[in-house]
């Protein structure tokens, strides 16, 4: 009996600790809930994103806040676990009474959390979840990056057209939703553009040894290898592939982006390409200011996740400012009305699916680890304007893609795509332009 009492006391005190947690304070602050994975297997992504968001918040607070109100960030870790992400968002919308939510990097966790934000009618903006499913959870869910089908189509098209590849090998992280999602689109679009996927090999995140796969890929003799995975694995793969004498370029997605990519992969990555949200070597003054500020503050070059998170936070602040209210519905409307917000990762407009419309940057890795902007591809909705000849490859590639894919409103106004570093025109957008590299 004593023991039961003892344990009940422990549980009761824990519950008390739970109840006494600081919850939402006074009404003179704008409370933004941020849920990210700062521990667990994707901790590095979460930490990057949190850094970007913190910087954006401090900037706006230094400048006097939003309409005179200071921004208060409530940052919570979800241990890289979907269910825990849902728990945190429940806490945000009830205990903490946040006015808006920023989060997650991984689509799986955004999908788990989105219905809760939707039910509570609190706008949620995800900086980097690329699965189309996320924003389908409701009209309060927004995304400030491109979606997988669009990115996949861009990668495949780049391989088929710009690199003139006919035979492709695919290297997929089978355990990773991001990678398998891209794989499908890449192989479909690449095949439609006249190429052939000669071999598909897979690995699992954290694998150290790719020699078996490389031996098989080498046997198939491809012109290009698509590696839609995360940078740690990609860099290792590149190194081992070069060790085994494979010389064809590797092409991947935004998962490659990290200063560590070149640190690990080194010269093995020279001449490879990946699609990205931005490049820290871009000469655009907005980008350069962000990169300099970030470096002063954290001592490292910001990766794309930091940049998209920074943008997402600023888009959210901007919407709250325009809404001039902390009401969920008003902020939602203001977010939906966002037009050409000048972000680090391009000018952001939300389409009717609440997905950001902005250019995809194809980055070329050059000797010494310089990320050079090789091409820019403007994307509208789920359709690739550059592939207007074939009816919206992305939508066809992924049945799950938003319905707008059916009517590709190929709006390629130069204004929408123009940023100082590029010379895109509607015509140019059709066949991507090599830009003068900085």
């Amino acid at each position, binding site marked *: 009996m004593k023991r039961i009492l003892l344990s009940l006391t422990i549980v009761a005190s824990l519950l008390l600790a739970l109840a006494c947690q600081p919850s939402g304070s006074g009404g003179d602050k704008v409370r933004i809930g941020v849920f990210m994975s700062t521990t667990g297997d994707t901790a590095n992504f979460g930490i990057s994103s949190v850094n970007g968001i913190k910087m954006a918040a401090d900037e706006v607070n230094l400048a006097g806040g939003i309409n005179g109100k200071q921004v208060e960030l409530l940052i919570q870790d979800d241990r890289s676990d979907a269910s825990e992400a849902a728990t945190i968002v429940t806490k945000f919308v009830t205990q903490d009474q946040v006015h808006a939510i920023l989060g997650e990097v991984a689509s799986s966790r955004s999908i*788990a959390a989105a219905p809760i934000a939707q039910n509570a009618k609190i706008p949620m903006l995800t900086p980097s979840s690329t699965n189309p499913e996320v924003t389908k959870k409701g009209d309060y869910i927004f995304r400030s990056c491109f979606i997988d089908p669009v990115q996949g189509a861009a990668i495949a098209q780049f391989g088929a057209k710009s690199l003139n590849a006919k035979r492709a090998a695919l290297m997929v992280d089978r355990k990773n939703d991001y990678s398998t999602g891209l794989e499908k689109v890449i192989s479909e679009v690449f095949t439609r553009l006249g190429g052939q996927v000669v071999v598909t090999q897979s690995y699992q995140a954290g694998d150290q040894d790719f020699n078996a796969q490389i031996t098989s890929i080498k046997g198939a003799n491809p012109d290009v290898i698509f590696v839609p995975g995360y940078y740690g694995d990609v860099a290792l793969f590149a190194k081992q592939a070069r060790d085994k004498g494979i010389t064809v370029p590797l092409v991947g997605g935004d998962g490659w982006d990290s200063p560590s990519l070149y640190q690990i992969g080194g010269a093995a990555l020279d001449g490879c390409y990946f699609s990205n949200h931005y490049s820290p070597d871009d000469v655009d003054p907005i980008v350069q200011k962000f990169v300099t500020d970030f470096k002063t503050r954290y001592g490292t070059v910001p990766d794309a996740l930091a940049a998209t998170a920074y943008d997402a936070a600023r888009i959210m602040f901007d919407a709250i400012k325009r809404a001039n209210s902390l009401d969920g519905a008003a902020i939602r409307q203001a977010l939906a009305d966002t037009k050409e917000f000048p972000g680090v990762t391009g000018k952001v407009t939300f389409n009717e699916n609440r997905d950001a419309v902005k250019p995809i940057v194809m980055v070329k890795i050059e000797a010494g680890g310089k990320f050079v902007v090789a091409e820019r591809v403007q994307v509208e909705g789920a359709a690739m304007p550059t592939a207007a000849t074939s009816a919206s490859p992305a939508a066809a590639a992924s049945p799950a893609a938003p319905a707008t894919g059916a009517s590709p409103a190929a709006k390629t106004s130069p204004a929408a795509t123009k940023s100082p570093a590029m010379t895109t025109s509607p015509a140019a957008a059709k066949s991507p332009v090599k830009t003068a590299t900085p």
Partner: protein
Amino acid sequence: MPRYLRNLIIALIVLAVLYGLDFVFQARMISPYFIRILMLSGIAITLAVSLNLINGFTGQFSIGHAGFMAVGAYSSAYFSVTYGANLAATLGGGKLAWAICLAAATIIGAAFAGLAGLVVGVPSLRLKGDYLAIVTLGFGQIIVVFLNNIEVVGGARGYSGIPIVQSFFWIFLIAVLTIVVVYNIVHSAFGRALIAIREDELAAEAMGVNTTRYKVMAFVISSAMAGAGGVLLAHFDGYLNPKSFEFIKSFEILIMVILGGLGSIVGSVLGAILLTVLPEALRGFAEYRMVIYSLLLIILMITRPQGLLGSTAAFRGWRGRRRKKSRTEAEEITAEDTRDSASVDKATLGERQSETSLREKDSKNK
């Protein structure tokens, strides 16, 4: 009062209390955050109590519980996604119709998990101790690998679009049912056979207990209940990801059982609540949260090795080194010897040697 009448009244009271609480919670009189944690605790209770049946009462060391949970979760989710909406519509589409759908899903999930338990249990329960552990762990991982590759249920991208039927009533009904089932098993002839197996498998067999049959039965029941827990989880967030069912999850459930005390149902319930609430209660510590969590776990194990409510009896079956103070040192050693010899023999460092050969070698070395 006749026994069945008394039981019926208790059952009705429990139902009424659960329904009443459900009603209170639906009215949002308490923060949904607490209710969510409470419901997660309810799911954890189902899992921990069911694992206790096999680990605590039968004395078999299984660490693949998350695999069975995954089978239950995915099979029921597939049912709900494919037939759920239709079935609910045919039944009138109301709250009751969804309750019936959820009941059907629970039965399907539990049945599939039980079947998986049978497939895994029949071959592997011949093994003992750590070997059984590693085989169950292996099966758990294999299930996850397959889930990652089944496209119908989303593969690695996860399975979304499962109808969300979060219900405090249903979660705790299953939890209470699990507790009642395990309690009744333990206090029946079946349960005594299980405990006999835990205490001494050879002796139990000598007394005429069909040990294999009982072990497999306990394993199947335990898996089916884990499957029911999986069903609850699937319909809780409406999203499943194979990542959630890796061996770490099995460890989590195992920790709940051992922290609460092996062979104690109340202990498992407390362990489940404790380990669900603890990470939330530590939220204020930011990035040090999980460091503190693991430190607390180690300290708890050092200070209360038998768990919060564990009886020492459950531990003897584990050929553990725990002994009663009243015994003398010499008695201990003999008692220890009879119990430990098998496991020691099994795994010596290097080749197995008898004591004489050890001595011979020594003299040679001199």
